[in-house]
């Protein structure tokens, strides 16, 4: 192609321009090759996650169920009770909404939405919707309050006003263990209901601990693998790679078999007489189990990058330092260790990133106190059905992970990642 370029460029077009054109063409071609996959991931991955981000701030249940009222309440100044017209619109909207059976547009959806911010208010909406059609004429304010005196509480209307906005920070407020005070300002939630921040902290702490244990365990092994002759190190490498290639669920199952109260370790301890048969130790279905199983699963991710770095360090450096009279520890600290830092950083970040997003192992062996933030996200998506809150928690986790990913890219470069 290049030979052809030169020959054509003799037809009067300046060489520079021609070259620029060719380069542009080549750039386009390279870009074009990546496009099918980029487009694929856009649809299968980027858009879904983008939509989740959107879900975390968007909840239109109020405006979808009682649309006219949502417009009206937003005009209200928030003093005392809303005006009579707003009450009238509300009653009419509720009568209308009661007839709707379309998914996502029923009174139940509205009630659930408001109940998130004002616990215990759910039945106020469902029962009012059932009885609202009895209110034939005004004054609507008195009629509604007569139906249920809770409608006379300005708090419910303030909550409704907040919830009537489709774009809301309410779920981040909940995800950070905060709540709206009566005057609409944001304050700490009651300690008894604080769960997410603690869990974020616990997730970060456990991930750090797991990463640290992985460093402690991986360093000697990687070093051993890097200094042994090839024949021996290949043999030992199998012991790292086989677990790495074995299903996560298989390894989790194995740990359950080993650690449970009727399991191998407890049996051995009883057999050796260290503990009595009644005094079996609880090592699984709690934090300990989560830590042990996760260290085992993530350890290869620490060993492999460390090993690939250590293999490139010439042993002559250490020998030189020693022969010049350095004490072994000093030589190690000043000469060897600094050279392993890139591998250490790569392994540390990788293990930490994988650990804070872990779901399966804590779900299976975590019991009650070994659950991580991912498990709470899954709980809200699959069980409690508070999807917006799940999305808000997910977004916070995603931001933390992407920051670490950016750091990884900055320090190491994701294209340097190798397996096996």
């Amino acid at each position, binding site marked *: 192609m290049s030979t052809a370029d030169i020959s054509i460029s003799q037809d009067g077009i300046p060489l520079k321009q021609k070259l620029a054109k060719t380069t542009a063409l080549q750039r386009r071609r390279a870009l074009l090759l990546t496009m099918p996959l980029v487009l694929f991931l856009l649809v299968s991955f980027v858009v879904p996650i983008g939509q989740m981000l959107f879900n975390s701030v968007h909840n239109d249940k109020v405006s979808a169920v009682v649309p006219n009222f949502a417009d009206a309440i937003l005009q209200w100044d928030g003093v005392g009770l809303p005006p009579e017209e707003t009450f009238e619109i509300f009653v009419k909207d509720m009568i209308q909404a009661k007839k*709707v*059976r*379309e*998914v*996502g*547009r*029923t*009174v*139940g*959806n509205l*009630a*659930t939405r408001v*109940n*998130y911010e004002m*616990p*215990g*208010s*759910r*039945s106020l909406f*469902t029962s009012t919707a059932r009885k609202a059609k009895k209110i034939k004429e005004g004054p609507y304010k008195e009629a509604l309050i007569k139906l249920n005196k809770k409608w006379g509480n300005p708090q419910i209307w303030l909550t409704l006003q907040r919830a009537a906005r489709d774009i809301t920070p309410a779920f981040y407020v909940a995800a950070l263990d905060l709540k709206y005070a009566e005057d609409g300002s944001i304050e700490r939630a009651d300690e*008894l*209901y*604080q*769960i997410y921040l*603690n*869990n974020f902290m*616990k997730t970060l702490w456990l991930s750090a601990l797991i990463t640290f244990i992985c460093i402690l365990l991986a360093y000697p092994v990687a070093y051993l693998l890097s200094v042994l002759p090839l024949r021996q190190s290949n043999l030992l490498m199998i012991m790292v790679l086989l677990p790495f290639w074995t299903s996560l669920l298989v390894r989790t199952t194995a740990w359950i078999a080993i650690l449970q109260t009727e399991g191998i370790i407890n049996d051995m301890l009883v057999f050796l007489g260290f503990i009595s048969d009644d005094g079996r130790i609880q090592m699984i279905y709690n934090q300990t189990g989560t830590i042990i199983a996760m260290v085992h699963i993530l350890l290869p991710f620490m060993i492999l990058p460390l090993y690939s770095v250590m293999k490139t360090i010439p042993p002559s450096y250490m020998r030189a330092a020693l022969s010049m009279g350095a004490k072994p520890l000093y030589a190690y600290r000043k000469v060897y260790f600094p050279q392993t830092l890139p591998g250490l950083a790569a392994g540390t970040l990788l293990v930490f990133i994988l650990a804070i997003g872990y779901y399966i192992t804590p779900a299976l062996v975590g019991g*009650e*106190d070994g*659950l991580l933030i991912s498990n*709470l996200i899954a*709980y809200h998506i*699959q*069980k*409690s*059905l*508070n999807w917006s809150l799940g999305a808000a928690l997910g977004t916070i986790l995603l931001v933390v992970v992407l920051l670490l990913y950016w750091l990884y890219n900055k320090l190491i470069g994701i294209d340097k990642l190798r397996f096996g």
Partner: protein
Amino acid sequence: MNKLINKTLIATAISAAVAASSVQAGEITVVSWGGAYTKSQVEAYHKPWMAQTGNTVVSEDYSGGLAEIKAQVEAGNVTWNLVDVELSDAVRGCDEGILEVIDPSILPAGADGTPAADDFLPGTVHECAVGNIVWSTVFAYDGSKTQGVGGIADFFNLDKFPGKRGLRKGPKPNLEMALMADGVAPADVYEVLSTDAGIDRAFAKLDSIKDSVVWWEAGAQPPQLLADGEVVMTTAYNGRIFNAVAAEGKPFEINWDGQVWDLDLWVIPKGASNMEDTLDFIKFSTGTQALADQASWISYGPVRKSSAPLVSSYHNQPDLDMAPHMPTAPANFANALQNDFEFWADNQDQLNERFNAWLSK
């Protein structure tokens, strides 16, 4: 390389052909709670209905909740035809529009001629749901190892009965049982629970045994926990304990003090296919005879009055009379509480949150 590609293509084609399967007409998927309970439904509902109509019932298990139904409905891909749910879920699901409305006039009159509206116990037929059984959460223990249990207060008494306790992982109905153990009369339980102080009181009671609790999720677990000796006492669905005693000869005993009873109802996820057969199955399975037959497999009470006289003995043990084992038997009903679906519909999000926070501390 060509060979490799060919092989891959062939493998793909084969697996595609294998994996593709279609739903036949006359087939409905009925989802229930698994174990002995599902077995009783298979024997009393599914098998006779299949024999009578020639249709097929595919039985699936789940562990309660609306999540799966909601996901199916919102995805517009409903694969379940009929689901067995608790009352609070039936009400909430109906409110949220994810369940089909069921016309109560399709329900046949009782075997004795009583119109359906009078034959069903009050509150067992709902806008979107038709009841089938009355069940109850009770506490139970191994009678060969534990004797002299007084009432629900003893469940929380670790000094008198040391050892682990099994509880359902969730606030319902642990809070109610905790309050009853703390001396609250069943009639006052929900009144107390509707105040912050009452909730604190219930959690404080649970706190007193928290370190000894083994949490269970599926109904099949509590009898297993008792059999394995993992716990000394556990809360459980009464039918599961009964079944372990009747079918497997386990020496378990139920203590009915402080029982919390609830209903199970059939609901149809919105947009489910094959409505005709599904409704026919509802009519059949909530008929007088089917409900009475089910009660000979598991000790859950039928919701039709006309079924009660037909309930006889355990299906393969003629001398094991079922009536005294029902939650509604007068001797068992003295200190019973009905689960308040409205309280739970209102407060479950908040109480779940508090329960989870409490659990992780």
